[in-house]
């Protein structure tokens, strides 16, 4: 079998595996649901994930150890990851292939020539690592914006699968929503469509992971190269060169993605995969010292510059409620890849990619939006932390989340606090009974309790005409049938209170008749009152899960809303004096 055929099989296999892992990142017990599938495998193989978090946290998180294997294999074989395994690379490869099907050989050779601008990706890599590398100054992990594995994971998880599943509901019960999905799609689409201009545009010019592999592939044992110093210079080997590395001449070895098309296309077998450098010469990654220093310096300074906003300090955005188990904001930003795994696995769809809520550096990091999804953050669920590849959301247990068992002393994990908006709440602002929030509060005892109060309804002061048995006749007319719902009462002048069972335009019927004729005299005034239960939040009990906000019948801006104050992950946002 041809080596290029083997490569294609490998690409198809790993692409399929990647999509499969995205699909199975779904809560459930069926074979196509999460169970024990290694859904983070591609992210764990990605050395840029490992390196980024190592620089930002100065710890090598255990679950990322596979990345060492990738580095070792790259040192032995070169950039096999890009040409054989990377699912994003395979998409570019395929789209680039389609885009060039009808082009002439000469045009293709021209398209696949090496371009000076291919060095941009190294500067992007240095810039992004610079942002992460100086925790003492301020560090932020932003590699995930452009790192192909988080990028493609995010795009498939949050955009492509939800669109494909929109009407079939194969992987979810209802439609999945992702705020800002359009922006994720836009980035993905631009990256993919750029292949129509230059094949593997993203890989050649942008990809920071490719740049990283390019740098370490200089040490690789085997490499592509000419096995003869002279050739007829037909340049056919560059017809389908995926990396744009010019194997016909002095090969730009850092750009070679090991597609093996050159070896296939050389009619004289002058190109081989060998342990010696190309006999036509070899050129290393084109990174100027000035460019390196500039991009490193801008990366290092970018984070403190962004932080001038105070978004990670006292000026934090209170609506950015993080999932349960999320680390304190500074630590969180050192680990979050924006890969969207937590957002995909969340059974209620409440975890959303942030816009600017977390500041510029918080783009696409997970925040909760209780107006989206099926029911706030579910009490009996810790899926997001269990799936997070870098432990930006710690893998907490249910016991820890609820603060029971060995965690009883620490108490539950609070992700925020619910605030009743008394200007919008039906019982507070409009004197209508409701308390859906109280009903749905999942903690025991409930964090929402009610203040019970009787309020005289509009035009509710009326005069008694006559009392017979348990019926009161009135001088005035009242809306017929309105007060018989079990929520309305009459209050007499001397404090007598009776419950209304029904009413007509001129009479009120009470549920009991005990000595009514003596208690309410003709000519006396009575007030028609509604019994209201007004919701109040007990901040000692509230965990910020947002079920109340999700269920609030005031559908636009909810009358009870969760805000990040009181979250246990950051001591400086606490609200409680004690507890």
């Amino acid at each position, binding site marked *: 079998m041809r080596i290029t055929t083997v490569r294609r099989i490998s690409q198809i296999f790993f692409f399929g595996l990647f999509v499969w892992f995205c699909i199975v990142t779904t*809560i*459930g*017990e069926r074979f196509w649901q999460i169970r024990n599938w290694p859904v983070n495998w591609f992210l764990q193989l990605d050395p840029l994930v490992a390196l980024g978090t190592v620089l930002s946290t100065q710890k090598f998180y255990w679950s990322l150890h596979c990345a060492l294997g990738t580095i070792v294999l790259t040192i032995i074989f070169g950039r096999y990851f890009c040409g054989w395994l990377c699912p994003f690379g395979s998409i570019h490869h395929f789209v680039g292939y389609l885009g060039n099907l009808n082009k002439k050989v000469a045009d293709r050779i021209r398209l696949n020539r090496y371009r000076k601008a291919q060095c941009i990706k190294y500067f992007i890599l240095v810039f992004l690592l610079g942002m992460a590398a100086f925790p003492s100054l301020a560090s932020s992990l932003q590699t995930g914006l452009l790192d192909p594995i988080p990028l493609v994971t995010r795009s498939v998880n949050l955009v492509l699968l939800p669109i494909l599943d929109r009407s079939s*509901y194969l992987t*979810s*019960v*209802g*439609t999945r929503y992702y705020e800002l999905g359009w922006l994720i799609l836009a980035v993905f689409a631009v990256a993919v469509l750029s292949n129509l201009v230059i094949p593997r545009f993203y890989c050649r010019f942008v990809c920071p992971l490719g740049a990283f592999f390019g740098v370490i592939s200089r040490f690789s044992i085997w490499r592509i190269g000419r096995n003869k110093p002279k050739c007829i210079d037909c340049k056919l080997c560059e017809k389908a060169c995926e990396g744009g590395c010019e194997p016909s001449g002095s090969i730009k070895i850092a750009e070679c993605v090991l597609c093996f098309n050159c070896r296939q296309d050389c009619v004289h077998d002058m190109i081989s995969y060998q342990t010696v450098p190309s006999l036509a010469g070899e050129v290393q990654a084109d990174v100027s010292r000035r460019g390196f220093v500039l991009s490193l310096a801008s990366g290092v300074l970018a984070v403190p510059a962004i932080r001038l906003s105070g978004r990670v300090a006292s000026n934090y955005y209170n609506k950015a409620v993080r999932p349960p188990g999320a680390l304190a904001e500074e630590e969180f930003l050192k680990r979050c890849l924006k890969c969207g795994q937590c957002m995909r696995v969340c*059974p*209620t769809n409440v975890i959303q990619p942030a816009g600017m809520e977390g500041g510029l550096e918080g783009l696409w990091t997970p925040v909760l939006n209780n107006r989206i*999804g*099926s*029911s706030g953050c*579910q*009490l*009996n*669920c810790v899926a997001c932390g269990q799936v997070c590849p870098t432990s930006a959301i710690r893998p907490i247990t249910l016991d820890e989340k609820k603060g029971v068992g060995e965690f009883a002393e620490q108490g539950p994990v609070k992700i925020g606090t619910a605030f009743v908006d008394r200007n919008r709440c*039906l019982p507070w602002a409009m004197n*209508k*009974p*409701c*308390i*859906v929030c*109280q*009903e*749905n*509060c*999942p*903690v*025991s*005892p*409930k964090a929402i309790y*009610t203040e019970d109060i009787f309020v005289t309804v509009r035009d509710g002061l009326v005069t008694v005409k006559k009392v017979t048995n348990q019926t009161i006749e009135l001088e005035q007319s009242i809306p017929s049938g309105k007060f*018989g*719902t*079990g*929520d309305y009462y009459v209050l007499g002048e001397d404090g007598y209170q009776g419950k209304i*069972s029904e009413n007509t335009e001129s009479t009120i019927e009470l*549920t009991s008749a005990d000595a009514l004729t003596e208690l309410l005299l003709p000519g006396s005034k009575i007030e028609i009152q509604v019994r209201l*239960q007004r919701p109040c939040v007990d901040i000692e009990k509230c965990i910020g899960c947002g*079920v109340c906000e999700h*269920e*609030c*019948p005031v*559908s636009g801006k909810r009358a009870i809303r969760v805000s990040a104050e009181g979250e246990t992950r950051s001591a400086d946002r606490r609200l409680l004096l004690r507890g």
Partner: protein
Amino acid sequence: MTNAGEKNLGRRQLLVRGAKAAVSIAVAGALAYSMYDREGPKREAEKIKLVSLPDFSVPGRDEQTLAIVAGEDRAKTAAKAVELLGGIERFVSPGDVVAIKPNIAFASPSILGATTHPDVISAIVRLCYEKGRAKKVIVTDNPINDPASCFTISGIGKAAAAAGADVVMPKEGLFQYTTLEGGKLIVNWPVYYGPLEEADKLIGIAPVKDHHRSGASMTMKNWYGLLGGRRNIFHQDINTIIAELAMLVRPTLVILDGTVTMMTNGPTGGSISDLKKTNAMIASCDMVAADAFGSSLLGLEPSDLPYLALAEKAGVGTADYESLKPIRASVT
């Protein structure tokens, strides 16, 4: 006579072009005519097709309307209670499709009592298949919390499937609009009609729970789960909506599981300490009577639950359950 590029058209070309033009004009005209809208959009949306829920009830029998069985083993007490009313054969005919509507509102484990206990569900599903010779049993609900999580965490999905039932999750297409005749609240409102459409019989199975707004959540409140749309607005008039639901839904049988009663913090519960052992299983053809008895498990009087009076007035049943001469038994 004419060459390409010259101005003059040949006769043949003229005819072909003329025909093409005529067809284009005709098609455009026909399309425009077929879609022509003289009036423009109206204030009200297009009239929605309304469905009405079938009457699932079976003919009543004197002194076999309400059964109350004491005991701890739900499978046994539930079977006994049904037996006392004449056995499942009275309610399910061979070949019937039976829909079962438990309370699966919350993603909470069965031990916390916020949802119908899976043991009752599997007992009734098995009865329907084995003695009732039902063709198919459907177990379904439209929960408050995330549906998939509710079915899984409550244990109901697994128990129902193990007993051979079809577990149906709510999806958009399963809701249809309905209007309750004489109703004030259920007007053009989406209900979870899909699973009931093919059903011949409907059995409601609910736990006994405290409910701060309405006083108690039992078999009548259980039908709230059939409402779709933004049903939370009905909490403004909770008693009327519960009474209207009881008018709308005419079940074959309701089962009220008072083996354990959620005394406080309802309807979500969340702690064992919210529960009390009350060891009662009720089967009834009269929901009002079942709930009136159930209120005693919560330490309430039927008069504490205004919706019972409203439903009684609407002729759904009687809150004076003793008048039905309930059959009592106990199993150990």
